[in-house]
């Protein structure tokens, strides 16, 4: 049976609410940045939030995920390198919907155990279901990586958007979306950056706190995205595809 019957991992990588960092100087100053309205904003007012402890760069070991109906808090309990149990799917300070947290945790676990990807199903967050663009993607593919960018965040010279775009060009199931229609200035800048977006969300019902980026078991602030490696997600995609073919 193809893995598609079992595996549905939707990772929504959202970059919201970040002020633009259009210059290296401004960006490099670290604690202030230029906002879209031309005023300066502090980093703390942009998007520094607490993250669930187990996401903070922890290497998460495999956890067996066997039942779609299992309690996400229980099934996603896992261990760090020292063997300390880390429960990562409780309601964190981000206020993520539980379904989304489950998705994130599922991916973190799967990535950490790429040689034996465990699959499950889970209920999609309502806001994904409510977005026709996302719902269509989810229904069309077994494994989908969706990155949602706020148009003003695309100007960040340290952003990783271009890299994701490159992976997309290589045929990966990576979809880049904008959270809103860009302004005319933003639209010009996006064209200059030569990053192709797949869709613009028509239903802006995203959780307010979705301004952190999830990559392979770690929540990464968007302004440090440049250093994040998409490799783990690639491994996940590759493993999933191979798994499907081998079946």
């Amino acid at each position, binding site marked *: 049976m193809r893995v598609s019957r079992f595996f549905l991992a939707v990772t929504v990588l959202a970059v919201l609410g970040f*002020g*633009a960092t*259009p*210059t*290296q*100087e*401004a960006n*490099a*100053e670290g*604690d*202030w940045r*230029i*906002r*879209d*309205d*031309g*005023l*300066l*904003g*502090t980093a703390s*007012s942009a998007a520094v939030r607490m993250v669930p402890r187990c996401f903070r760069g922890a290497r998460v070991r495999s956890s067996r995920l066997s039942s779609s109906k299992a309690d996400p808090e229980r099934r996603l309990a896992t261990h760090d390198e020292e063997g300390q149990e880390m429960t990562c799917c409780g309601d964190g300070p981000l206020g993520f919907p539980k379904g989304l947290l489950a998705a994130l945790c599922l991916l973190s676990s799967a990535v950490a155990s790429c040689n034996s990807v465990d699959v499950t199903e889970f209920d999609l967050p309502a806001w994904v279901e409510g977005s026709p663009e996302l719902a269509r993607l989810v229904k069309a593919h077994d494994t989908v990586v969706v990155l949602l960018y706020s148009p*003003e965040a695309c*100007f960040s*010279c*340290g*952003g*990783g*958007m*271009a*890299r994701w775009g*490159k992976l997309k*060009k290589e045929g990966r199931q990576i979809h880049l979306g904008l959270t809103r229609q860009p*302004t005319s*200035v*933003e639209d*010009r*800048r996006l*064209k*200059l*950056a*030569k*990053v192709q977006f797949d869709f613009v969300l028509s239903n802006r019902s995203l959780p307010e706190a979705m301004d952190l980026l999830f990559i392979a078991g770690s929540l990464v602030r968007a302004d440090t995205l*440049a*250093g994040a*490696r998409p490799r783990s997600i690639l491994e996940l995609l590759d493993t999933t595809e191979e798994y499907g073919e081998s079946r």
Partner: protein
Amino acid sequence: MACGDTTGNEVVLLEPTREIFLDEPDSLPVGMPGYLAVAGNGAFYLSDAMNHRVVSYDPRGTPRGTFGRAGRGPGEFTGAGFVALFGDTLAAMDHASRQMFLFDRRTGDLVRSVGMPGHQLYSAATDGGTAWLGLIGALDQGDFRAVVKWNLATDSLETLLQAPAEYYAVSPSPLWIFASAYLTEWNDTLAVLFGARNTLELFTSDGTLLSIVELPVLHRRGVPEDRKRVLTRPTAKEIPTLTYEAVQGSLSSPRAIGRLPDGTIAVVHADQTAERGKVTAQLWLTLLSLDGRWSCADRQVPASSEGRPAVAMLRDSLYVVDQVLLDNDARTRLRVFPIDDRGCAGSWNTPEGGS
């Protein structure tokens, strides 16, 4: 070409002698031009702050190779920045990790990495065995280095010049983005432009001050009298009420310096501005005799208003890379401007004579 401005003087626009559009295959688009270095044969190297790499081009603008990639390992960029050529070596700064990556220009292989002090590197000159680097030290951490001497054989770094005294005056909270140092070197002489100063300062290659030459300001913003205000970091309370213009738009920032074959010093300044998050820069070229008696101030170097251009000088040519939208098609453009005295009202001007 000339056009009027509010000062009553005419702004002289330089005209390029050469313009090419870079070949950008799908695999090698230019996302955001960062820094530019030009080789003697006309080949050039452009760092791309968005795609985290340096791409080399032949003189026709065809890509020939890439240096580095995105990441945090050796030779990998999280913030591809300044680039310079040292013989067969391409030096490329990753300003996020403060590493200078040295690549073999022919193979693209990483030769070695050198840790660099401070926040960013802006300028370099070499006599073959030694390189002088203009940078911004970590002023906020008490590191006021502005020019370091780099022994290319041993990779040892020796502090040559500290940032000007006015930066110390606002310690411990200087706004270091203006503290850049640009330099050029010849015959054991170092010409240095410090950010937020309106002077050209000449030193021996060992750091002894020789002379200070005032730079004329005709059209560009120049540097305000109250430099302390400019150099002081806004408080957390002030930041939300400040505009980009109020912070960076208050002065001209150096962008490049070079010495022409006849000994004239050429300086490029940028007046930066921002529109809804998009930073653009108006470039101004000034020529200056070393004794300061003759100058040709503030001829405008036309550049795209779509972003901030990358600038480099080689001998008597100024190279500018910018991006333009042509029929909704984003293109990256290299233009070459001759650095000569054309448009200098037919003669050189003395600073006292109204320049």
